[in-house]
């Protein structure tokens, strides 16, 4: 804080700026701000309505998750991963479980893989629905958010039926899943899909091609393909720049190589493309779920490990997966005990957020929230 005060000299009364010279004013946005998507703080130097410079401050939600992992047994860490990206819990659980499975060379039962994929894709839809909702709210439209939350609610009801929790499921296990699905799971999903398609379509029709929405988002927060790669953007933020990179295709994990789906790609790398890529991804996820439901075998889902304590062999492993927000990576070092020596997460939100300073330069104050919203950050994952 002290250094900020010393930098804020242009705002003092007395020195009259020359005509045409920018008058800097410091505007503090966050941590308690309705559209910073959590406790994120941005210090903006503004000249009238234009942002000259932006400085992000993070760490308000720092819980030391990575360090906490070192003190927990392998099975207990799943709950910590639930709380990283608290909007897409299943995806987080999946990538951790895959890391440990890779380390131990475990084979996951066929049916469990399908269950995981279905739940992950449903969670991707739920997460993207939340994105569309907040994107609309950031741009000032109230109604799409309600439609999206209705869809998200339906997905969460299904999650509750499956895992007993609406969020923070703690349902995947190393080498399988916790328990088999409810008997009518196929029926539940089959009933859900048309409703979900309707929810996605409804908010899509209301928002995506709205003239004002286009005016607010098109050509705003543009990031070039080179810059996007340099900043390490992944996920929809990168695909909006025109690069067809999706871990599900580039390095298929789990059983994603068995499904036929497309990767939506944007052209301009602006906020609207980031929005539209996510909308299209929801339709693709629906396609994946439909195929997975058709192919789903019967059989066992539980891990071959049972409830035994795990002591993976010494070594290190890196697993990655495509989360709704981008590529998540887990680097895990085992020293042969029942607790990992080191767990390092490459959180997509954090890497995507690193570009914010670059993107906010010379934008409007009103665009700040839109650009921030289009990155779709989850502070639990940024701060860890």
């Amino acid at each position, binding site marked *: 804080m002290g250094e900020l005060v010393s930098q804020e000299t242009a705002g003092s009364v007395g020195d009259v700026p020359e005509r045409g010279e920018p008058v800097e*004013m410091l*505007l503090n946005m966050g941590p308690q*701000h*309705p*559209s910073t998507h959590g406790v994120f703080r941005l210090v903006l130097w503004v000249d009238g*309505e234009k942002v000259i410079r932006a400085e992000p401050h993070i760490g308000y939600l720092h819980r030391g998750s990575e360090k906490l992992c070192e003190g927990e047994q392998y099975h207990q860490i799943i709950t910590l991963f639930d709380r990283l990206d608290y909007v897409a819990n299943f995806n987080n659980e999946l990538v951790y479980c895959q890391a440990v499975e890779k380390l131990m060379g475990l084979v996951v039962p066929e049916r469990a893989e399908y269950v995981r994929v279905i739940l992950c894709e449903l969670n991707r839809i739920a997460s993207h629905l939340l994105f569309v909702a907040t994107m*609309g709210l*950031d*741009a*000032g*439209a*109230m*109604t799409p958010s*309600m*439609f999206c939350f*209705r869809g998200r609610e339906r997905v969460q009801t299904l999650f509750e039926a499956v895992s007993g929790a609406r969020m923070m499921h703690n349902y995947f296990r190393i080498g399988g899943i916790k328990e088999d699905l409810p008997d009518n799971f196929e029926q539940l999903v089959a009933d859900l899909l048309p409703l979900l398609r309707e929810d996605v379509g409804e908010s899509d029709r*209301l*928002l995506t091609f*709205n*003239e*004002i*929405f*286009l*005016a*607010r988002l*098109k*050509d705003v927060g543009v990031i070039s393909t080179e810059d996007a*790669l340099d900043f*390490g*953007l*992944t996920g929809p933020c*990168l695909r909006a720049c*025109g*690069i*067809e*990179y999706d871990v599900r295709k*580039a*390095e298929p994990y789990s059983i994603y190589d068995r499904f036929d789906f*497309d990767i*939506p*790609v*944007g*052209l301009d790398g602006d906020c*609207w*493309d980031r929005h*539209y890529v996510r909308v*299209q991804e929801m339709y693709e996820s629906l396609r994946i779920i439909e195929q997975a439901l058709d192919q789903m075998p019967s059989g066992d889902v539980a891990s071959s490990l049972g409830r035994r304590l795990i002591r993976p062999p010494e070594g290190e492993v*890196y697993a*990655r997966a495509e989360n709704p927000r981008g590529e998540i*990576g887990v*680097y895990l070092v085992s020293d042969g005990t029942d607790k990992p020596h080191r767990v*390092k997460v*490459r959180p997509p939100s*954090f890497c995507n957020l690193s570009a914010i300073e670059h993107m906010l330069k010379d934008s*409007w*104050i*009103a*665009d*700040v*929230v839109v650009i921030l919203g289009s990155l779709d950050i989850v502070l639990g994952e940024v701060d860890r």
Partner: protein
Amino acid sequence: MNCVLAEDNILHGTPLLRWVYELAGLFLPCWLSYFIAGFVIMFILVNAVLLGAAVFVWTERRLVGRLQNRVGPNRWGPFGMFQPIADLLKLIVKEDLIPQGADKIAFVAAPIIMVATAILMLAVVPFAKNTALADLNVGVLYVLAVTSLTSVAILMAGWSSNNRYALFGAARGVAVLISYEVPVVLCLLGVVIVAGSMSLADVVTAQAVPFILVQPLAMFVFVAGTSAELNRTPFDVAEAESELIAGYHIEYSGIKFGLIQAAEFGGVVTASAVIATLFLSGWAGPASNYIGWLWLLIKIGVVAFLFIWIRATFPRLRIDQIMAFAWKFLMPLSFINLMAVSLEVYFLRDSSGALTTTDLWIMTVINLVVFAVCIPLFGSLIRDKVRPAQLQPTARATPGATVQQAGGEVT
């Protein structure tokens, strides 16, 4: 002494007021009893604004709830109807803070001015035949003048709060208000030309065909301008909650906040009344001699519904887009409306200078064509920033070495 109203007096058409006037005139001087009759109208008007605000808040919340697949307030009273009253009670007994370093006088005065403006707007609106508080011969100008007072109040509220967000809200609010004032003033010229008078009562009588049909351009500009001046979506940048949290009233709490909200929603009601009077022929309708007020209420409801509907549908524009909308889109439209109407009136009027209903219908046809041509034409002028969407769902970019760079790294 006995006071008897002249036939052309404004109070004459309303039995209740005439009765009050004549009863009071039995033992009071005539001018005093005139004012007493006036007080009755004032009582009605003040209550109309404040109750109207309450009813509008409830309607908006229920209706927006319905449009958004929600329920809306439903706890207190039938369908949650008493919710605004509960809100008011809560706000009155809530601690009322004045922030440190605030300019106390301006801080307190701002909400008072806002409410006063909202109430004052109704003074010249005729709510039944021959019934208005005052039938000013400059009624239209009065409405415009009172509307602009809001900008002063917004600037006072924003500046006195000693808060940067409030300052931004105030700056935006004032810029929007003064920018939309110009097209609104211009477009009302067409109404005045056809009515041949600035008195709102005469404007209503002149609407053998409602002006929404005769001058659709003017109606469009006026509704857009009014919703900007009321800080309604899509022009609500002054209190954009996602950017400026609450804008100019960010530091207000307790009853002062309540007053600002009442002024805002009451403002919608009064603005709807003005729009209904100017463009939807006000109290005129079947059996309007008896239920003119009902017709006005219905029309206010229609306009207010339009405002709610717009709010539930549209995102918010950015400040520069709003400015461009006012100066580059609404301005030419209102100029065209003015010229078209004056030319039509010049060629259609008869030798005594009167317009028949047939003339109005001819104007309707011409102006609807002008409307249909001008909106897309000038709309394309300000759309240069928006490129047509060209994203294909599965447009294939060439994955190459760059893709390898993107993945596989640990931070």
